[in-house]
């Protein structure tokens, strides 16, 4: 018999998971708690739809929130229905919008080969150039308007409506509103002139296109089924885009969400969104309460915690643990109290260091703030434990890689002056070769060559030693079109990699390897350079965790992670929940903190260690109210070295 990976995977699903996978065409919301197998349900459903329509041409659209999740789902669908995965388009919201704009952006004056400016540094320089070009006496204060512009774009307010919107909706004084609108308009003009878009414009411009019924109809026809991962994270502009695309009739929507895991309200997500979806599309609801990841005590602690949130979906069923409690009498939840934050870091680091290497690998340390993780990283390093801080990187961190990417960008966009400045600057940082950008641009105008060719000539004529001169030779090969990009890149990487034991460069090189492989698999080996760079811009440039290392992540960066052993550090009032949430008007912010705590604890497959200190820096802190809400007081807390009384106080000092 032919091996049928889909059939055997479907057989392994629970009855309720199967129900979701086999769901007919109608709109469905799957409320899926942590560890309930939601990614599996999504991928199986996509595979099932494709498998049941082998002779059809329609495609399935699935939108996720990270390129990593999209990549993983694509791989899984391909494994379940080999040969049919071509019809599954799995992207992030931003990646999908980039595709729409590549194909149809012409209507908005966008060229198909636009660049995506993802990091703040690039965007600040766009605004700076825009202001210099658009005004005779640029006001330095205007350069700080970028966050205001972002705020407007994230709400789908275009440059032409900005002034009115600011004045009427936001109560901004008229002069200020006019100032913002002008800066916004100049910034947009400059982006267009550079043939570039930023992240927010991807959604904003796609939303503009979908205002035309023919465009929305095109996507409805092409994609017969739309699936959404982590729907609770959808922000207002993404949801508006979705509504426009769906028009008044489209209903084949399948969303997986958990309102208890909404932790991006600060970014426009809202626990109301799930309710909007159910109401606007008339979704039926299927719940997947079974938690296959966490042991029962953790599932119970999570259940106890989230009921304190008043704004949850009322009929949501409590999670049920699928796994038995450990039979070895192991305690799945442990608490540690320390005197100071330093004690906490060194204490937990020592505890992790004491584990044998197999248990240590993959241990996940979570915290509400990045600062706590950085201290933790230092402490682990002192113990000789390799640790990786998982955080989104919009750009490479080493000048070497920033230089190489700038070279590639220059190939794809030969007259990009701003990128040329980055190239020259980055090269100076690691090769100590200082070139004057204006000289360079002047000489390429005079000789009629591209800036990149002019740059290689200047470097080559400077009489430098290998490997720097070799690097320039490789780039010369690229610039003249004599060398194949793939080969030249490999050679450049080899030259750079031989160099030294630079940590940042090592990180970047391993990130590059992972990303370039991922992109090549996704867009095909023959994809042109422009497309490759677009994909690179959309992805985070952090390195994959080194094998055997401990992972450190903020709770907001912990989406989709799980680990046998999880440490949640700094669980005190003022950190988790944050000082801001405790002092805010209304319960909203506090509830979001509670959900953060819920997300953190439910990453655990085996053992969860919660720790706190009585003092963080100069500030005395009380243990978090969430400990009590989870029912964890009264449990024995092992005292770290130098810790005070073994039972924590419940009231702040």
């Amino acid at each position, binding site marked *: 018999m032919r091996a049928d990976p889909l059939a055997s995977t479907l057989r392994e699903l629970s009855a309720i998971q199967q129900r979701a996978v086999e769901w007919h065409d109608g709109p469905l919301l799957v409320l899926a708690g942590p560890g309930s197998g939601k990614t599996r349900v999504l991928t199986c459903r996509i595979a099932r739809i494709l498998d049941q329509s082998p002779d059809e041409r329609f495609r399935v659209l699935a939108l996720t929130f990270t390129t990593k999740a999209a990549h993983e789902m694509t791989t899984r669908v391909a494994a379940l229905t080999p040969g049919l995965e071509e019809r599954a388009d799995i992207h992030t919201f931003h990646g999908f919008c980039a595709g729409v704009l590549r*194909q149809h952006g012409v209507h908005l004056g966008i060229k198909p080969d636009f660049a995506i400016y993802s990091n703040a540094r690039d965007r600040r320089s766009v605004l700076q150039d825009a202001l210099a070009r658009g005004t005779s006496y640029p006001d330095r204060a205007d350069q700080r308007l970028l966050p205001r512009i972002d705020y407007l774009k994230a709400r789908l307010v275009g440059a032409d409506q900005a002034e009115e919107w600011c004045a009427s909706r936001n109560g901004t004084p008229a002069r200020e509103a006019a100032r913002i609108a002008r800066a916004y308009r100049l910034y947009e003009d400059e982006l267009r002139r550079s043939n570039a878009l930023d992240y927010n414009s991807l959604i904003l411009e796609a939303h503009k296109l979908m205002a*035309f019924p023919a465009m929305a109809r095109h996507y409805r*026809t092409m994609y017969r089924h739309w699936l959404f991962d982590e729907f609770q994270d959808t922000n207002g502009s993404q949801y508006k885009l979705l509504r426009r695309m769906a028009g008044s009739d489209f209903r084949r929507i399948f969303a997986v969400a958990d309102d208890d895991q909404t932790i991006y309200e600060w970014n426009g997500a809202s626990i109301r969104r799930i309710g909007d979806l159910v109401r606007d599309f008339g979704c039926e609801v299927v719940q997947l309460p079974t938690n296959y990841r966490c042991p029962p005590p953790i599932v119970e602690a999570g259940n106890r915690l989230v009921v304190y949130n008043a704004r949850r979906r009322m009929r949501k069923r409590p999670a049920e643990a699928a796994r038995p409690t450990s039979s070895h009498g192991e305690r799945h939840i442990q608490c540690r109290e320390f005197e100071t934050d330093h004690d906490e870091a060194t204490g937990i680091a020592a505890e992790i260091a004491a584990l044998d290497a197999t248990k240590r690998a993959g241990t996940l340390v979570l915290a509400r703030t990045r600062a706590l993780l950085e201290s933790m990283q230092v402490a682990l390093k002192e113990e000789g434990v390799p640790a990786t801080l998982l955080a989104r990187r919009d750009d490479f961190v080493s000048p070497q890689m920033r230089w190489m990417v700038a070279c590639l960008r220059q190939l794809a966009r030969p007259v990009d002056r701003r990128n040329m400045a980055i190239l020259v600057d980055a090269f100076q940082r690691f090769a100590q070769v200082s070139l004057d950008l204006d000289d360079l641009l002047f000489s390429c105008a005079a000789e009629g060559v591209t800036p990149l060719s002019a740059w290689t000539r200047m470097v080559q004529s400077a009489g430098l030693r290998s490997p720097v001169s070799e690097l320039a030779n490789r780039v010369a090969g690229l610039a003249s079109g004599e060398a194949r990009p793939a080969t030249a890149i490999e050679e450049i990487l080899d030259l750079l990699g031989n160099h030294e034991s630079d940590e940042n460069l090592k990180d970047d090189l391993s990130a590059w390897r992972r990303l370039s492989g991922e992109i090549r698999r996704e867009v095909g080996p023959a994809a*042109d350079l422009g497309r490759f760079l677009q994909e690179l811009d959309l992805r985070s440039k952090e390195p994959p965790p080194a094998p055997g290392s401990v992972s450190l992540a903020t709770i907001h960066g912990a989406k989709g992670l799980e680990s046998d052993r999880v440490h949640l550090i700094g669980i005190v009032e003022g950190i988790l929940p944050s000082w801001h949430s405790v002092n805010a008007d209304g319960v909203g912010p506090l509830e979001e903190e509670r959900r953060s705590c819920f997300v953190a604890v439910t990453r655990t497959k085996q053992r969860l260690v919660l720790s706190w200190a009585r003092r963080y820096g100069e500030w005395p802190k009380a243990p978090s109210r969430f400990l009590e809400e989870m029912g964890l007081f009264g449990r024995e807390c092992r005292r770290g070295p130098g810790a005070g009384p073994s039972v924590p106080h419940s009231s702040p000092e």
Partner: protein
Amino acid sequence: MRITRIEIRNFRSIRHVTVDLGDATVFVGPNNAGKTAILDALRIALTRRWGQRGTGFDEYDVRLADDTVDPRTSDGVSIELRSDEPEPGDWPDAVTEDLGDIIQIDLFSGRRWVALRAQWSWNEDADAFEPTWEFLDAKRDPLVGRSARRVNLDRFWRYLPVFYLDALRDVRDEFSSRSSKFWGRLLRALEIPADVEAEAMRVLDELDKRLLKADPRLDAMANTLSGATRIAARDREGGLALRMAPLKTRDLLARAEIILRNEPDAPWLPLRRQGQGIQSLSVIFLFQVFVEHLLGELYEEGSQPLLALEEPETHLHPQAVRTLWHHIHRLPGQKIVTTHSPYFVQHVPFRDLRLVRLTRNGTEVRSLPASFSTSIPHFDGLDEVVAKSGDLTTYEAVSETLTVNGALDDTTYRALLSLCGAHPNRTELESKLRDLRDSSSLYITDDDLRALETQGQRMRGEIFFAERWLLVEGPTDYLIVHATANALGYDLDQHGVAVIDAQNNGNPGTFAALARALDIPWLAVFDGDKGGKDMIKKIRNREFDDNSLRDRCRTHSAGDLEAQLAADGPEAELQDLLASMGVPNAQTLRGNGLAAKLRDSKTAYASELAARIRDGRATAQSMPAAFRETIEKLRGMQ
């Protein structure tokens, strides 16, 4: 889907042509004008083989300015095809699902389209000419990313299967089970039920046995031949047998052929024994059979065959050719036809005709379009003027195209001009608008064309093959001008001059406008009386200026043709002519009386006079000066 426009650059005799294509489009033009180049360009850009090893292009395909130019430095061949949805929503959903990555959408009308650019140019790295392709957006920028994946090209081709029947189509190839793209596939697609097949095999085996027994020599032959297997001996013994009947039913089917007879009692004969005309025609019908029975199976829902058909009239009788258009018009899919037959052209609607000519600029194509466009950037006030013009003008913002559906009237033109006044690129805009007005002034209305359909249908066949036109009043002029030209050593037929007489064919103004639109040189000779002046007035009404009219139109100074003959001609010749026609007292006629008698029997005298001019009994030099001068002028025209 069907191809709505093809734009070709630097391909064989073509420097740059753009041709709109309809459901059926007919190309007429002299040999070597570039008709086949257009068909080939279509075929190459749509043929599956393209882009792989051995593309449809070869090195002679790149058009060069002259022999000294290195092909490697030229721009290379470029062929752009565009397929537009006829009305929003016409394309089935399957097309969107399949071609979603390359479809472009007109946001306001909702109409969808796909544009493909195929190029063949020198690639320095590969040191060879290489084919490339890309799909385009409304600004003709290539689409990148998913849209640039090769699978899109393969899918696009599946919707536009192209079938090429060239002028030399041979019935033996087309109906061969091996080499025909139609017949062989049809035969292979036949489904024979298992029981029928078994029965057929039983009968074949039986037949085989009986045939083998029919002549004893067969047995001896088999015996001798089996020596081969003994020499090439292996461990296990093989065998050799003679087989008289086909071994399999498939082999039997492969021998299927068409037989026919013309009369009930005539013998049945295979198709290849029939006349050339029937053979040629049957290939066209075979195409229809193929499309009806197999196209749906082999291609997609929404696939439309594109039939490129060269000279459908080959070997056919004129009567048959006249009806041929109706058959071809009804063939499934899109038809692109070349023809040399005036009979065929007679029934082709004017707007479907494309006149192909070779000029100093290479191949040029003329037609009678229903609209005219120019590419012009948007400027303030444009939208208002367009809105005010009603349906006459439209502006498409993305591709920056201003279109006039008819002739651009003066009010709209002036309104547009005045708006450009303040524009920084004023000169450029003005010249573009001027060009648009000029080209749209060539517009021929549907009413004009309808009038020509009713009155000038027979003429149509001839005039589209002519190189120059001569407009005259009636059949008398027609006969005499032909004979005179012949006698003056400039045979009108031989030199491709079509003489069009207004009496039989309708308004001369329409013909003059038609000639202008199709860029056909023309002259006219009319009577010097009121009737003749009316003719000139009708032409003047089509926006010809007086200089141009003076240059092109001549009239008989003495009045009508007969008056002119009476005034010019040696009286004796005319009197003799009338006498030979049995006119009493012909010898005494002079002046007005002579002219009046000639008028009494117009056609009779004209044919007799024409005959006499041809054999020298009447002198061509005495024929009206307007005729002789016009003939000389035609002779000098290039």
